[in-house]
């Protein structure tokens, strides 16, 4: 078990390191002079030089990379050029919106998708199954930001139950905060739930056809009991993979959804960073998002090991 954890951790650390190099090269290497890029075409040479000094762009690429990494590892993410505050502060502030939003959406999607998928598998081939297949097919096809617009149209304009956007801050109370995040979370969750329900359904149907289910029935288990005792846990293994992948989709989807609802989250921060050419913010926040994805992948790997003894006991 320990060996498995260490191997996974090492390989993930490697992909993090590789990802940081890619991000660094894309942002600092490709555009030529980052300072000139940030200030635009009409900037005075003196201003560019001043910014170069401020951003620590004097050294070579390798030197700058090492400095950036050193900062990231010690919690110093640099200082935003446009906001004039440390990126770490910005991130901490914005994460208060993004993390609850992602968790909310993931919870919604999982709570809806798993029972629906199980129901469809148990009634496979019947009208309930067909109905679920049809609905999930539609759910996958809907762009989440368009769905968000429809939600706003229906539940914020026609029937003003929710607000059309903005975030009151957690100071306004947990309830108000959750209410502001509800429509964005629903919009984010819909396509994810559709995918997850389909995966759950097909994984379960596959395990239902397995030999050990026949053994269980021959032991005298009823079909329902055999599903609960044997099929579900085996079917969870592919579902876990998709859950891990979904986190990355949620993060990406959040960038657009936060824009639809004017939520002050990380996605909006990175987007503003891009439009304002604030490369320090873009670079560090991207790295943090990749870190989050990789960490979740690692956690999913651990969950795998918990679900599947074959991984746990392998030497």
């Amino acid at each position, binding site marked *: 078990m320990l060996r498995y954890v260490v*191997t996974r951790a*090492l*390989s993930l650390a490697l992909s993090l390191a590789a990802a940081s190099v890619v991000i660094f090269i894309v942002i600092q290497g490709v555009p030529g002079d980052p300072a000139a890029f940030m200030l635009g075409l009409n900037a005075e040479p003196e201003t560019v030089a001043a910014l170069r000094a401020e951003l620590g762009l004097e050294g070579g690429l390798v030197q700058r990379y090492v400095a950036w990494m050193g900062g990231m590892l010690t919690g110093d993410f640099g200082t935003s050029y446009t906001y004039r505050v440390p990126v770490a502060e910005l991130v901490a502030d914005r994460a208060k919106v993004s993390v609850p939003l992602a968790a909310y959406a993931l919870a919604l999607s999982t709570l809806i998708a798993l029972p629906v998928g199980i129901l469809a598998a148990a009634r496979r081939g019947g009208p309930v199954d067909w109905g679920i297949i049809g609905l999930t097919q539609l759910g996958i096809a809907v762009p989440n930001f368009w769905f968000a617009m429809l939600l706003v149209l229906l539940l914020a304009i026609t029937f003003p139950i929710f607000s059309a956007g903005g975030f009151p801050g957690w100071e306004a109370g947990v309830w108000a905060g959750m209410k502001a995040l509800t429509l964005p979370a629903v919009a984010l969750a819909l396509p994810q739930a559709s995918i997850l329900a389909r995966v759950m359904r097909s994984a379960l149907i596959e395990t239902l056809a*397995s*030999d*050990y289910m*026949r*053994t*269980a*029935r*021959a*032991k*005298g*288990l*009823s079909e329902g*009991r055999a599903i609960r*005792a*044997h099929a579900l*846990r*085996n079917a969870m293994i592919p579902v876990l993979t998709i859950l891990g992948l979904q986190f990355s989709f949620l993060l990406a989807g959040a960038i657009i959804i936060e824009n639809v609802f004017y939520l002050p989250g990380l996605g909006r921060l990175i987007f503003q960073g891009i439009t304002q050419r604030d490369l320090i913010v873009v670079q560090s926040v991207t790295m943090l998002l990749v870190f989050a994805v990789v960490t979740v992948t690692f956690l999913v790997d651990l969950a795998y090991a918990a*679900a*599947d*003894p*074959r991984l746990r*006991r392998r*030497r």
Partner: protein
Amino acid sequence: MIEVDRLSLSIRDVPILREVSLALAPGRTLGLVGESGSGKSMTALAIMRLAPRAAEMSGAVRLEGQALGPLSERQMCDIRGREIGMIFQEPMTALNPVQRIGDQVAETLLVHGHANRGEAMARAKDRLARVGLVPDRFPLSRYPFELSGGQRQRVCIALAIALRPKLLIADEPTTALDVTTQAQILALLKELVAEEDMACLFITHDLGVVAEMAHEIAVMQRGEIVERTTPDALPGGLSHPYAKSLFSAAGHVPARAAPAPGAPLLEVDGAVRDYALPKTRLIGPAPTFRAVDGVSFMLRAGESLGLVGESGCGKSTLARAILGLEPLQGGAIRLAGAEVSPEMAPALRRRVQVVFQDPYGSFNPRHRVGRLIAEPFHLTARPNDAEAQVAAALESVGLSASDAEKFPHEFSGGQRQRIAIARALITKPDLIVLDEAVSALDVSVRARILDLLADLQARFGLAYLFITHDLTVVRVITDRVMVMRAGRIVEEAGTEALFEAPQADYTRELLAAAPMLPAA
């Protein structure tokens, strides 16, 4: 006493079983034999009422006078596992991979409410010990993947007999196992039937196994029981033509003459083949496994040499090296004096061809037979009369020239094996490696393919390297036999000599384990 009374079953109006009647008595084993698709397994599932939902049944199954047909699904659940236990063919997949073996055996007890958890685990331990999995070597906390196929089948038996059922249905329980493991499982089942006074319905396609296991035998063909007999009456006591042909096919000996001793064709000299295992560490070399460990032998032109061993002994790895598909890590292989290697010249490669086991996987499903057979022309320049040669090859294996236009899925298993042989013949090789070439075939088809092989050998002066796990096949088609174990040849002798007076312990073990039909 369990009676199956005129049981018929059809799925969407296609009859699968026709009036099957069986009587199963305590302490007795009834062998149900037939070729694939004859309805053996469906009979078992119908008794358990686990047949597909679309199945329509008539007739009756009675357990000590109580008819099972009218029982509700819930009542049937009570019967399954308690009164009737069942084990299946594929032990590798028959157990839940993420549950401990102790829990899986205990579940039989728990689901029938016969014990609390503690008692159930104690009973599970007891039953696992009874089937040979003693607790200090096989604790209840083991997972299926930590056990071999034979051990898993023991777990399946333990959970099937945990509640001492009146009937045990064993559906091809040893088909997926090696012959020595098979012998152990059969011995265990025999013991259990006698000791626990169970009735046993033993389903198999293997006539040798049934002759050894069963007190009574029923032969099934197309959903119907066509013959009932006892092992003692075999084979003379058979009256139905199908049953007769089935038994004669199993013991079939193709007519072949001893070859004139030819020149040395294939020389294998101290061959060593290692292959890499999956990496266990991020850094450092992958561990290796020595699959072939210093093998030496010689095969003469026109000779038929058998290579026998259980799965994983390295025989197929050796075959791939002889075919020049994989490099050796030591020693040498020479064909007609020239070195065999992955880089060998096409002119040399042409001289050795192959027929594989799987008549389904041996052909690219998207190519026509003509193109498939002509593929080895890649080695020679494609001759001008290629089509005529393909037609001739098809005819020499008993197919017709027009079959070249068809796709492989239009043929039966036996016909496909003929196509594979035609492909091997097309380059006029000196040596054909037959890697389990008849193992996947039903006995009657197998008998005809063996005849064909014997005939082709005589006609074209071919040498065969006949690789198989099946001793009965080796005996009728080879001149000499080698026995392989863990990468080494443990014995080599003339075929008759080896069967009459085996020298190595392992050979004796293999021969003792192999179920043999009473001689015709």
